[in-house]
C-alpha cells in the first residue's frame, strides 16, 4: 500500500518540525508549508490525503485557507483538520461542520493523541 501523504501548514517552524518528525516516524509522507499562501500554491500539484492546518497564522488564517480549498473544485473534497490553541464555541463548531473539517487538535497536544487522531482520520 502506498504511503499516506500529509500536508502540514503552520507558521511556527518548531511545530512543523515536531509534527513532521512524529508523522514520518509513523511512516507517513509529509509536506511542510510555512503559510497559507504557500500551502495553496503547493496544492496545485500535490494531492495530500490529509491537511493539518494551523488556525492562527499571520496574513491568511487557517479558516481562510480552508475556505479557499473548499472553493476550488480540484481541492474541495480534501480531508482537513485544524491545529488550534483556542477552544471552539458552539457557533465555531457549526462553522467547522460547514467547512467539512474532520477534527480539531488543541495545542499543546499529546504526541500519541495526535497520531491516534491522524490515523483515525485516514481510515
Amino acid at each position, binding site marked *: 500500500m502506498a504511503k499516506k501523504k500529509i500536508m502540514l501548514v503552520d507558521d511556527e517552524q518548531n511545530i512543523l518540525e515536531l509534527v513532521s518528525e512524529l508523522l514520518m516516524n509513523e511512516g507517513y509522507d509529509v509536506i511542510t508549508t510555512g503559510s497559507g499562501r504557500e500551502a495553496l500554491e503547493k496544492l496545485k500539484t500535490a494531492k495530500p490525503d490529509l491537511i493539518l492546518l494551523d488556525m492562527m497564522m499571520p496574513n491568511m488564517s487557517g479558516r481562510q485557507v480552508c475556505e479557499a480549498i473548499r472553493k476550488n473544485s480540484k481541492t474541495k473534497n480534501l480531508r482537513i483538520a485544524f491545529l488550534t*490553541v483556542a477552544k471552539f464555541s458552539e457557533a465555531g463548531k457549526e462553522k467547522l461542520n460547514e467547512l467539512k473539517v474532520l477534527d480539531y487538535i488543541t495545542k499543546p497536544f499529546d*504526541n500519541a493523541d495526535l497520531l491516534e487522531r491522524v490515523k483515525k482520520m485516514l481510515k
Partner: protein
Amino acid sequence: MKLGIKLSLIFIILSFVVALVMSITFFIQSSSAIESRIENQLESINLLKQNHLDTYILGEQLDLEILARDISEDYKLMLDSSGFYSMELNPYHKNILEKLSLHSEFDKNFIEFFIIDKQGMVFMSTIKSEVGKIKENKDYFIKGKNSSFIGYFDYNPYFQLPTLIISVPIKDDKENLLGILAGRLNLKEISNLITKREGLGETGETLLVNEFNLVLTDLKYFPDAAFKKKIFTDATKNCLDGKSGFIQSKDYRDVNVFVYYLWVPDRNVCLITKIDESEALKDLTRLSYIMAIIFSVIIIVVSIISLVLAKKITSSIIKLKNAALDLSQGKWKTRLNIHTKDEIENLAKTFVEMTKTLKKSRKQLESYSKSLESKVRQRTKQFEDKAKEAEDSKKATLNIMEDVEETNNKLKETERLLRINLREMKKLDKQKGEFISITSHELKTPITSIKGFVQLLSDPKIGKKSQKRKKYLGIVYREVIRLNILISDILDLSRLDLKTVKFNYEKVDLKELLDTVRKENELKANKKKIQLIVEVDKTVPKIENDRTRLLQVFTNLVVNAINYTQKGYVKITANKEKSNVHFIVEDTGIGISKQYFEKIFERFYQVDSSLTREIGGTGLGLAITKELITKMQGSIKVESIVGKGTKFHVLLPIKQKEDDFKKKA
C-alpha cells in the same frame, strides 16, 4: 404675476369655459328643436293643403256626377227622338242646356260644361263655338268613357286661364254609355285655395309646380305667375324626382328658406310649402341675444366674486408673508390676525408657534452666549491670573526658563496627551479580549513545542540518536528562553497598563547611559560586523527620568536595530531641542514600508513573523518601548526606507512636569 390676479384669472377662465360650453350646448339643442318644429309645421301645412286640394276636386267631381245623372234621361230621350230638323229645336236638347247653364250659374268654379258624344265630338257646350270639335284623343274623353276622370292642370288659351277638366260618363238606367259630360274648372279658385296663408307667418307660402317646373299658382312675390313662370330649385328638383321631404335651401328669389315638398302623383304636381329662414329662426336669434346677455352677466358676476375671493385668500397669505419678512428683520410677531378657518389659518397658527419656538430658542441662545461670554471672561481671567503668577514666579525664580506662553503650551500639550491616553485606554479596553486570545496563543505556541519535543526526547527511539537529541534539546532550550522573555514582557506590559510601574525620577547623564547601552550590545553588533555608534551633543543636559527604564527603552531599540540589520551601522544620537532631548536610533537595515509605521507599535505585531522567530522577538518590544516613552511624557515615531534603513525618533522632556500632570489627571 401676483397670486390674487392668478387666482381671479383662473376663476374667470374656468367660469368662461363652463358658461361657453353651456351656451353652445343649449344653442345647438334649441336650434335643432326649432328646426324640427318648423319641419313639422311645414309638413302639416303641406298635408293640409293637399287635403284641401283633394277635397275640392273630389267635391267638384261629385257635383259633375250628380249633374250627369240629372241630364242622362233628357240626353237619352234627345238621342232617341231623332227626326227634328235642328237639334236646337229639340226640347230635350234645350232642357239639357238649361240645366247646364243653371248649374254653371250656381257653381262659378266651372267656367264651361260640354258633352262629348260616343264618337268623340263635342255635341253640346255652354260655349257654342266649341260644338263640333273633335276630342277623341283627349284623356278626358278616353278615360271618361268608363269612369269619372280628373285631368291635369292646364292652361286654356280661350279663357286665358289655368284650368282643369273633369269628365264623367253619362249612362242610361241600364248602364249603357250615352256620352261624356266634361266640366272645365277655373284654377284661380284652386290657386286661391293653395296660396291662402294659413299659420305661416309673414313670409310663408304654398305653391304648386307641375312636371315642367311651371308654377300653377300665383306666387306671393310674383302675382300672375301661374302658368307663366318656371321654378328651378333644390326642392323642385327633388320633388319632381318623386320624393317628399324637408330641406333648407334657396327659393326662386334666391333667399334662404326652409322647404317642405310633397309629390302628389294623382295630380302630377309638386306641392311646396316654404318659409324664410330669417323669419323661422327669429326666435332663435332672440334666444341667442338673451343668452349672450346671460353669459356676460355670469362672467361679470364671477369676475367680481373671484376678485373679492382672491383678495380675501391672498390678504391672509400677504399677512403671513409680511410676518415672515418681519421675522427675518428681527421683529417678533406672536399674533396674526388671520381667521379664515382653513389651511391658511392652520399655517398662520403653525407660523406663530414656530415664531414662538424661534423666539424661545433665540433667548436660550442669547443666554447661552452670555453665560459662554462670562465663562470665557472667567477663563481669560484665570489664564491672566496664571500668567501673572507665572510672570511673578519668573521674576522670583531665575531657574525657570520657559515663559508664560510656553507654560500654557505645556498645559495644552498635557491636556492633549491626557485625551490621547483616555482614547488609548478605551481602545485597549476594547482590544482586551483580543489581546488575551493572542497572548494565550503566543504562550501556548512555545509550550506546544516544548511539550512535543520533550515527549519526543523521552521516546527511546529518538533519545538514542544523539544528533537529533541535541537539536531537539536546543529547540526546547530556545523555546523556554522565548517563553521566559514573553512572560516578562507580558508582565511588563500589564504592569504598565495597570499603572503599577513606579518611575524613580532622577537626573540622568545621557552620555553615560547611552555608552552603557553601546557596551552591552557591542559584542552582538561586532558578531554581525555592525558598527555601533553613540553621539551625544555637548549642549544636552542631564534629564529628569528613570535610569533603568531609559536603559530598557534604548536597549530595546538598539537590539531591534542590530537584529534587523545585516551590514553597516547602528547609530544613536542625542540633541537638545527646546525643552526636550531628541534621540535618533538609526540603522542601515532592511527597513519598514510606510503602511506598517503605526502597526509596529501594536502588541504582537510582526511585519514578518518568520524573520522575527529567527531573531527571537516576542512582538512586544516596541509596544513596551512606546508605552514606557509615553509614560515618560515623551513620544516615539518611525521613518524608514525599505532596503536602506530605519530611524526611530524619540523625544523626551528634560524636566518631568509631574506636578502639573497630576493636577490635570
